[in-house]
């Protein structure tokens, strides 16, 4: 069994050390230079990657320490897309700047690849990048240009293919497409449309893994649809929908499964014995090599001390199960 994290990590670390929060405050007051701010981001990112290594994770992100939010590097890399007003990110007390589309999407690249290259060059754990999934992007953007979802989706797929091609040369081994929008109760996208879009997105000539992460809702609704795609993993949120574990204990998927069994939105610490108990039936059905466990979503919704404890809980469970 393998372990990973989902995306974001708190930008303030537990204990002493560099803090992105205070660096930004000091930067805004003119007390530190742009170089010092840049180096603080780098140092915090390295600490997150060190933590991933010490927790013996099999795959990690860079914690998205430089990212303002999930959309940030994508918006920076596209022409005619701007960071607009704050919107609540689903049912969280957490807000993102929604992408405002003012013209035809055009890929310029640069930011995401540069950030990823820096993280990959340091990381001792294989690195993945978690990006907004196509349908989460579509649901949360504001379109003032296309006026036609089909055309917008087609261009979005095209520019994201370019982004992935660019990423493949940075040392990143996996792109995780975050699709909370599909799992969330109000999703209205059809299975065929989702399948077709992701088929088109995944360029067979680019050597990089693709996975999809479903969280904050019902992952089970999409298992059949997504398991027919050439994905390396489908990650499910078993905290929002415990029933998905029962399904996965019975139905074997064509692809690896990720089990979000550690609650990334509550400080309560899970008992390792209980986690092992609920994971084992899935392990038996899906197999050791094709089962991952991880937090239910990014860890930025937790205070830093608890985020760190939950990462180490992953290590503990992995050791016990694999023993």
């Amino acid at each position, binding site marked *: 069994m393998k372990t990973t994290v989902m995306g974001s990590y*708190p930008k303030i670390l537990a204990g002493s050390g560099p803090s992105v*929060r205070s660096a930004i405050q000091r930067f805004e007051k003119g007390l530190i230079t742009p170089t010092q701010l840049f180096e603080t981001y780098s140092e915090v990112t390295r600490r997150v990657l060190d933590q991933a290594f010490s927790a013996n994770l099999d795959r990690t992100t860079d914690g998205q320490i430089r990212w303002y939010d999930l959309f940030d590097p994508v918006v920076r890399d596209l022409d005619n897309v701007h960071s607009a*007003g704050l919107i609540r990110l689903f049912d969280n007390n957490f*807000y993102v700047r929604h992408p405002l589309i003012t013209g035809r999407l055009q890929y310029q690249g640069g930011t995401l690849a540069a950030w990823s290259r820096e993280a990959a060059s340091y990381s001792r754990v294989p690195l993945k990048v978690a990006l907004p999934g196509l349908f989460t992007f579509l649901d949360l953007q504001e379109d003032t240009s296309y006026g036609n979802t089909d055309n917008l989706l087609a261009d979005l797929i095209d520019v994201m293919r370019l982004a992935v091609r660019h990423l493949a040369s940075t040392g990143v081994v996996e792109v995780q497409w975050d699709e909370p929008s599909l799992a969330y109760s*109000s999703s209205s996208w059809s299975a065929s449309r989702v399948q077709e879009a992701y088929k088109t997105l995944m360029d067979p000539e680019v050597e990089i893994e693709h996975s999809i992460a479903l969280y904050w809702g019902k992952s089970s609704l999409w298992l059949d649809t997504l398991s027919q795609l050439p994905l390396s993993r489908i990650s499910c949120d078993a905290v929002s929908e415990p029933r998905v574990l029962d399904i996965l204990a019975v139905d074997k998927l064509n692809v690896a499964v990720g089990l979000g069994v550690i609650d990334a939105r509550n400080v*309560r610490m899970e008992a390792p014995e209980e986690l092992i108990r609920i994971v084992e039936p899935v392990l038996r059905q899906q197999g050791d090599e094709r089962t991952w466990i991880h937090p239910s979503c990014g860890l930025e919704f*937790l*205070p830093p*001390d608890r985020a760190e404890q939950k990462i180490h809980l992953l290590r503990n469970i992995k050791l016990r199960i694999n023993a």
Partner: protein
Amino acid sequence: MAKHLLTTSVGSFPKPNTLITARSQFRRAQISAQQLREAEQEATRQVIALQEALDIDIFVHGEMERGDMVAYFAENWQGFSQSLPVRSYGNRYYKKPIVENVVSLGNSVGLTVDAWKRASELTSHPVKGMLTGPYTICDWSFNAYYPDRRSLVMDLAQLVHEEAMALARAGAQYIQIDEPAISTRPDELELAIEAMAVVTHNLPAKTISHICYGDFETILPGLYDLPVDQLDLEAANQHFALLDLLARYPWPKSKELALGVVDVHSHRVESVDEVKAGIRRALEIVPIENLLIDPDCGLKTRTWEEAEEKLRVMQKAVEEIRQEDGLR
């Protein structure tokens, strides 16, 4: 003839630098609690003076004694502890409360009354009593004690009710119970409504609930059943798209709408014309006697200058419409 398009603010104002320094000094035990209170009172004076200068109709006290709208209550009530800071957006963090025991008022009955009284003494305008609703306190806390959200929300509703009654007894004519989290789980709207009914039960004041940054489409028209006299909704942030939603349903005659017309999370100061355009669109949906005007949300994330300028634009837009339409 009654005055139309009354103007107000949602709650918080930016803290002046002197108060930021005082709060920092207090945390380092360099000044006493009394000295901190004096700095808060001086800042409140500035908030009141600004509203007087701009000719705002219904005042707020600016929440100079509060850090965060949920953490403030959790810090003073029983049953909560504090987490390390958790980010809410950008470089904004809050110490998210952790519910670790049965919640109660402890020794903090009438927690908000003193600040309200001191602000009210500075003006002849009505000052709103400001509370955070039970559903939002629950939603923005980690629940590590109660077996389910419902039992926590309903316990909190009783506490917020007691606080609201204390404000009413002190003379507050307007009591605002903020519920920004209410749209996060449409399947819990009924719970939020039930809890608000506990809060506003027999409350002898005009009741208001401020709601922002939510997916209103999922909770309308059910939101109209929230037992308050006035809904205070954010609209400018999404270019008044909210109004298209509101237009789908008849506006309830018994309710007022306080419409957010300036974006509190943007440095850009809106033009008078764009604010007027938003108000004019709202007037097509809501009767003029039911419509009030305010910013999208609390102003604490803006600089003092930005907050002042945004309020000035808002007030000018309202005054121009009053003049153009021959209103008082």
